[in-house]
């Protein structure tokens, strides 16, 4: 397995282009959460010429809808949700300067192309590891669309959040590569 690479947000192009499919990374800094419903509202805001709840430039969006925090904790279980549902929205945000998405599963060829064209990374996190990933989230604050409950946009501060590069800026695709290697 490859060496572990530490990344701090906001991400810069020079850090991103070095990343290759299968690289294990530990992400620290601020990241933002959004799922289907929040993405829909963000894209509608853009279409109306309204500002987004946060500036996406250089940022990472984590596709997650956490469970409620238990007393004394900043967040509940917080593993990734399936990313393909964000296919219709992700390219628009990447074009605006979004540098990373964290989720699970495949995304579209369009997203893959946008990762190359605009230099962005699609990271994978381990789905169903909600308790373990929550331990790497130091704080969580709802910053928009509170009425969406678990789907509200949250600003998270993470420390050594473990992820793997699924789509890099060179057209690589971890799912395809992995499958080729182990398919009989």
């Amino acid at each position, binding site marked *: 397995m490859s060496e572990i690479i530490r990344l701090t947000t906001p991400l810069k192009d020079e850090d991103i282009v070095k990343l290759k499919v299968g690289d294990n990374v530990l992400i620290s800094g601020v990241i933002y959460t959004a799922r289907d419903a929040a993405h829909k509202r963000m894209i509608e805001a853009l279409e109306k010429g309204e500002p987004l709840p946060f500036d996406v430039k250089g940022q990472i969006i984590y596709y997650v809808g956490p469970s409620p925090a238990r007393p004394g904790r900043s967040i509940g279980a917080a593993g990734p949700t399936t990313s393909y549902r964000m296919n219709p929205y992700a390219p628009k945000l990447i074009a605006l300067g979004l540098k990373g998405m964290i989720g699970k599963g495949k995304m579209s060829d369009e997203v893959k192309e946008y990762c190359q064209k605009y230099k962005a990374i699609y990271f994978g996190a381990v789905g169903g590891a909600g308790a373990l990933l929550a331990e790497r989230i130091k704080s969580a604050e709802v910053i928009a669309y509170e009425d969406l409950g678990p789907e509200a946009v949250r600003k998270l501060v993470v420390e050594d959040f473990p992820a*793997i590069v699924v789509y890099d800026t060179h057209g690589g695709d971890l799912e395809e590569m992995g499958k080729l290697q*182990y398919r009989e």
Partner: protein
Amino acid sequence: MRVVDVSEITEAVAKLCIDANYNLPEDVYEALKRALDEEKSPVGKSVLKMIIENADLAREGVAPICQDCGLGVVFIEIGQDVHLVGGSLKEAIFEGVRRGYREGYLRKSTCHPFTRANVGDNTPPVIHYDIVPGDKIRIVVAPKGGGSENMSMVTMLKPADGLQGVIETVVKRVDEAGGNPCPPIIVGVGVGGTFERSAFLAKKALLRHVGKPNPDMELAKIEKIMLERINKLGIGPMGWGGTVTALAVHFEMEPVHIASLPVAININCHAARHKEIVI
């Protein structure tokens, strides 16, 4: 005739919702440990280690196993010698779900299909009732996550497609699903009766202890064939490549209509949560 107050049902359902979401069943935990031994991909191994560690943290009460605490699927078998008193059984189950999801800090995931407005208390659950001999009540709560449910399907094959058609359909579906349903998965396959009966059989197949073969030797053989085919796909843990894509295939079969060969595939993520109680 045994009299049971429905408040007992509420209490049991609430407890089961919490138990299922924090305590991964032992059979699933053991299957994951076996998978860690068997997996050839280093990335796959590291994923499995994290999944096992996560189950330990959830059991300690850090947070539920997964943020998707599921839609509450409730199987209730009521002995025909039981007389239920104290109110509506259905409402008692609903209240159990409400209470369990609130008190257990579980995510409420039911919403309006189009406005997507969250219902707020994770109702309605999906309830499967059965009347059985005896004076006991058996309740199984199996919270089901959206990611793996989205990769499930029912299709109506032609009788001429036969067993081979069923096997190919199952393998193709798992291949298309890739990493989406959080592999290593458990695949429930149902063939029998009508459209909805097959889906029910596939769902019920997921409740079986992981890897416990169907008692019917013929069906157990089919399960083995399907599992081997699936684990040769190379999808691996989380779809990042590997030799363990499924922990088990559970196949349930019943007679069908002479015109039909319905097949249902219900996929469960590795967080295969189900807990039961007998009252």
